[in-house]
């Protein structure tokens, strides 16, 4: 341990046996089953004697196995090998990115099972270990007893004494001048490592430090040492770590108790000149030297690494076309045969970051040559998509179309492919085709906002009578996105207070995972209460990220309702219910909210509200709200006639839109009943003063002013570092306008009455 903290021993060894081992992707890989109280699954694990861990596991694997209880307590796991098993009291956290990347590139070699973790020194220290890579196995046996005598020498083998430092085992290694150092027994990577600081100090930056002997074995006959950072210590000075390339040449038996290792040659020495040549080129940081290496060694083991290094050096040094193309050709040459398209795609992404469009084209074209053989069939389609996008940006129309069509054939639902095809058709003046593609792209988050802009550009050019609108888009995407309609509409209920209308408020966000479930439940409520006693408003909050529908009015209401997270419904200002979750739970969420609303509808109210004369003229919304109180004991038609001030009640009037387009990562495309602004002087509303039994509030507001206020707020929020979003759907559509009025008690927070009126557009006047 770094500072000698106490840790529990991870395993106990009573058994042993052989484990088949493979070298995959230059790592030692073993296969086994791993079991917990919940299940038993086959997995692949890295086998690393120099990894200072017990059992590391990918979090996903650990979660499936329930390696920890709900309160975080570790649960024991068992590793099942053909001849024995190992009990492990707890797992540690594995490097998920590395494991995922390895599985992606070496899945074919590993079979169906992913590599999910590492078995390391803290487990392996309990065993008598033998590495026999020549025969493809590792042997783990119970530790030997402490012997009185030294082990018997066997002809043809080399016996070395071992030391143990920090749970690692070390062999003595001597340089030509006889100075003794220590080299750790590793095999976590292919190359045998030498401390780069040590190598540089000896004037050997390529790791060519000369003779390095393990007993009678001249290590430098067998392998080239790779200079790397060494973060290990040993009293004799740590010089490096043995890699798999050492174990390929020797059977290594390790007795940890009696501190010896027996090395038996299994392969004759054959010094890898290509490895050393690469280490020289890498140390010199000379692209010409590196290119010469690649030309001289077309089968070099380290060719892929060298080719990538050469490419990035050339790019960063502003290399010419010939140099870049040559480097790309090397990268393609050294990629695995069935990963050329996948590799090219990954390279295009890296090159895209720097905006090197030509380099991306050259890399993509190379990847397409072997595309059909790629183990990931979508790789070639994605390359076509990227090439189409690049050619479109360069106005190479014919090439763009060819590539995009190929891509669409393989991935017809991909948002970016459809978006780029839409852009292509628009350029060509084929607006109907463009429109169709933009519709496809509009429902995918990554392409949605741009697709909506495309729809708005193209739709007027279609020559149809219908202008672009949310309603039009809604019809076009029907069947392509999830929706939810209630099984039955609201029916009058004796238990519900006569004349009472409840306000259902939905707090959400356009980037929120799980928001779709809440939105679908909200749609269900809208359909159930379509002609029923409910008014609706929705607001977007800033979490988890800014979206263009976040507005200061919504945030003020969230604070007033004590809502801090964007997955909540609030009924009549006080009852909080679910607003998000798994998509399959939408019905359960809807049912709960419907029942909560029914409860709210039972509460009597004497308030009467009416929105009248709602109209939009010249960009202004106008109308009036009448507030009255029904006299106690009177029928709902009889209102009072007194003068009275209700200082603890407020009239709030809100301008909303029935549908607003924003395809965010929440997968919700059309956002319902979005509150845009207060029509009263402030969000808190007006104190209610009845005169002759009623209060009339006339409102008038400019739609452009509301748009500008919201856009200004968004821009200020982005400038303040609160997040980033595209400014879209900020303009208010008169055809979608709706006004909600409600009365709220400031002492209880309860909304005691509400009403909602949609703006009806005169269709004849419109035409």
């Amino acid at each position, binding site marked *: 341990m770094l*500072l000698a*903290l106490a840790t529990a021993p991870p395993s106990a060894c009573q058994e042993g046996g052989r484990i088949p081992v493979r070298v995959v992707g230059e790592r030692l890989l073993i296969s086994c089953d791993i079991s917990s109280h919940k299940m038993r699954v086959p997995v692949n694990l890295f086998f690393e004697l120099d990894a200072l861990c017990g059992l590391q596991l990918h*979090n996903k694997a650990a979660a499936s196995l329930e390696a920890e209880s709900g309160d975080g307590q*570790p649960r024991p796991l068992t590793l099942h090998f053909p001849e024995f098993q190992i009990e492990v009291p707890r797992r540690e*956290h594995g490097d998920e990115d590395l494991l995922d990347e390895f599985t992606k590139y070496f899945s074919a070699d590993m079979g169906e099972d992913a590599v999910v973790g590492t078995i390391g020194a803290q487990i392996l220290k309990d065993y008598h270990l033998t590495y026999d890579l020549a025969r493809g196995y590792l042997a783990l046996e119970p530790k030997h007893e402490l012997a009185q005598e030294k082990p018997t020498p066997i002809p043809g083998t080399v016996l070395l004494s071992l030391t143990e430092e920090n749970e690692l085992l070390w062999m003595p290694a001597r340089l030509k001048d006889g100075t003794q150092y220590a080299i750790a027994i590793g095999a976590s990577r292919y190359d045998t490592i030498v401390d780069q600081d040590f190598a540089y100090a000896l004037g050997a930056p390529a790791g060519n430090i000369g003779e390095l002997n393990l007993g009678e074995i001249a290590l430098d006959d067998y392998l080239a040492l790779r200079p790397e*950072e060494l*973060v290990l210590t040993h009293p004799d000075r740590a010089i490096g770590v043995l890699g798999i390339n050492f174990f390929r040449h020797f059977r290594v038996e390790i007795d940890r108790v009696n501190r010896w290792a027996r090395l038996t040659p299994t392969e004759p020495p054959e010094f890898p000149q290509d490895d050393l040549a690469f280490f020289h080129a890498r140390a010199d940081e000379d692209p010409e030297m590196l290119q010469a290496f690649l030309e001289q060694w077309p089968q070099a083991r380290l060719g892929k690494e060298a080719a990538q290094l050469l490419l990035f050096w050339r790019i*960063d040094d502003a290399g010419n076309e010939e140099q870049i193309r040559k480097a790309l050709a090397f990268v393609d040459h050294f990629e695995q045969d069935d990963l050329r398209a996948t590799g090219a795609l990954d390279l295009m992404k890296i090159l895209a970051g720097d905006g090197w469009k030509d380099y991306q084209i050259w890399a993509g074209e190379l990847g397409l040559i072997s595309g059909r053989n790629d183990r990931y069939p979508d790789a070639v389609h994605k390359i076509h998509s990227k090439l189409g996008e690049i050619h479109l940006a360069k106005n190479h129309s014919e090439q763009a179309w060819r590539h995009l069509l190929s891509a669409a054939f393989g991935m017809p639902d991909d948002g970016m492919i459809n978006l780029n095809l839409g852009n292509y058709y628009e350029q060509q003046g084929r607006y109907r085709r463009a429109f169709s593609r933009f519709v496809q792209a509009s429902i995918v988050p990554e392409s949605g906002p741009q697709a909506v802009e495309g729809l708005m550009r193209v739709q007027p050019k279609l020559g149809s009578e219908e202008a672009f609108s949310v309603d039009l888009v809604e019809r076009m995407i029907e069947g392509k996105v999830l929706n939810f309609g209630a099984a039955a509409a609201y029916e009058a209920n004796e238990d519900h207070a006569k004349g009472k209308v409840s306000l259902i408020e939905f707090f959400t966000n356009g980037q929120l995972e799980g928001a779709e479930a809440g939105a679908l439940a909200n749609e269900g409520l809208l359909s159930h209460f379509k002609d029923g006693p409910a008014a609706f408003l929705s607001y977007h909050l800033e979490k988890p*990220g800014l979206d263009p529908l976040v507005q200061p009015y919504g945030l003020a209401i969230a604070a007033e309702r004590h809502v801090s997270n964007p997955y909540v419904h609030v009924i009549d200002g006080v009852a909080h219910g679910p607003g998000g979750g798994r998509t399959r739970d939408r019905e359960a969420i809807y049912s709960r909210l419907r029942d909560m609303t029914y409860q709210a509808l039972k509460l009597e109210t004497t308030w009467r509200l009416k929105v009248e004369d709602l109209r939009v003229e010249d960009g202004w919304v106008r109308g009036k709200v009448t507030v009255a109180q029904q006299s106690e004991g009177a029928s709902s038609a009889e209102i009072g006639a007194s003068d009275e001030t209700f200082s603890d009640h407020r009239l709030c009037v809100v301008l909303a839109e029935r549908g607003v387009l924003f395809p965010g990562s929440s997968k919700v495309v059309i956002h319902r009943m979005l509150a845009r602004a207060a029509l009263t002087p402030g969000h808190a509303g007006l104190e209610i003063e009845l005169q002759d039994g009623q209060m009339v509030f006339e409102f008038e507001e400019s739609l452009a002013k509301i748009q500008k206020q919201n856009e200004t707020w968004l821009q200020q929020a*982005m400038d303040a570092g609160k997040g980033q979003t595209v400014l879209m759907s900020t303009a208010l559509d008169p055809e979608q306008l709706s006004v909600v009025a409600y009365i709220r008690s400031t002492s209880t927070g309860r909304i005691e009455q509400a009403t909602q009126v949609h703006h009806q557009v005169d269709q004849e006047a419109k035409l």
Partner: protein
Amino acid sequence: MISALLALSILPPNGLTEPVTVALAPKRHRDWKIELPAESFVPVGNSIQLAGSGLKFAVSMQGTNLSIDLDGDGISDTVIEGDEGSALLRNNNGFRYAIRLLRNENGWSYASSSTMNADWNGARISVIDQDNDGVFGEVGEDAILIGRGRVATWLGQSIVINGELVQIDVAKDGSQLTVSPFQGETGRLRLADSFHGDGKVLSAVIRSADGKNCFDLAGQTGAVEIPTGRYRFYSGKVGLGQMAVHVSSGKSQTIDVANGSEASLSWGGDVNAEFGFQRQGDQVAFSPQDIRYFGSQGEEYSNWFPVGKSPVFIIKEADTKQEIARAMFPGSC
């Protein structure tokens, strides 16, 4: 002959007797692994502005993706997708500035992704624009890395190279570095090899109380010459194989380095842990967020890597000292 030998014997280790100017060359780190003393990312906003060069690179959003004009001509050159990326800002005059990009709940932000390097007397010197403003050599704001390790420290007016204290001055555009013999009073401090523990010292930074001097003494054996002043252990990193832990000042004491003196700062084990717990009836709860580790100097150890290694909490009966229960944090902590 004897005078020449004597002259040689009093030459500093680097042989520096007068200022030397060395050219710095950019090196892009696509896979950034350098640890900075105060890494920061700058929110992207409407553009990326590098004060040093006066250049401005426009950005805009495409959904959640970031569109960037990489060459300052007003036309978008790339769109960064996903949650992270890398880009090279440039122009036709040879300007190059590589950046890393990160997206979180606050949107996109960027940080420098290259170093300005020189090899001098066998030592690799890397200067880093830590505050991402395009201006290099800002003392107390930028960072410097000596050698081929990965832990940088604050850029000061002087540094220790090959065991020798020198003064440095970095050009604002990062094109060159001037190394001069140190002028001023000095003392000696032993730090890196007075660490008591099994790990390798990857970084051991002391900082003067006036903030003008900051030295990473990792890799320096024996006592190292530094300017006189009052110092405190500032930060560090200890590693062993995959494992690593960061070190901060914690409760460490100051140490005075006087002219001509030699001092030693012993640090590392034995480590003491201070932790909180919550008791509810017959249950006791511990939190991995409520435990702190301190070394012999008072320095604090935190950010242990990898996660999943837990101390063992042993609860004993107060009178009989009999063990009642044990607890450990789960492997995901």
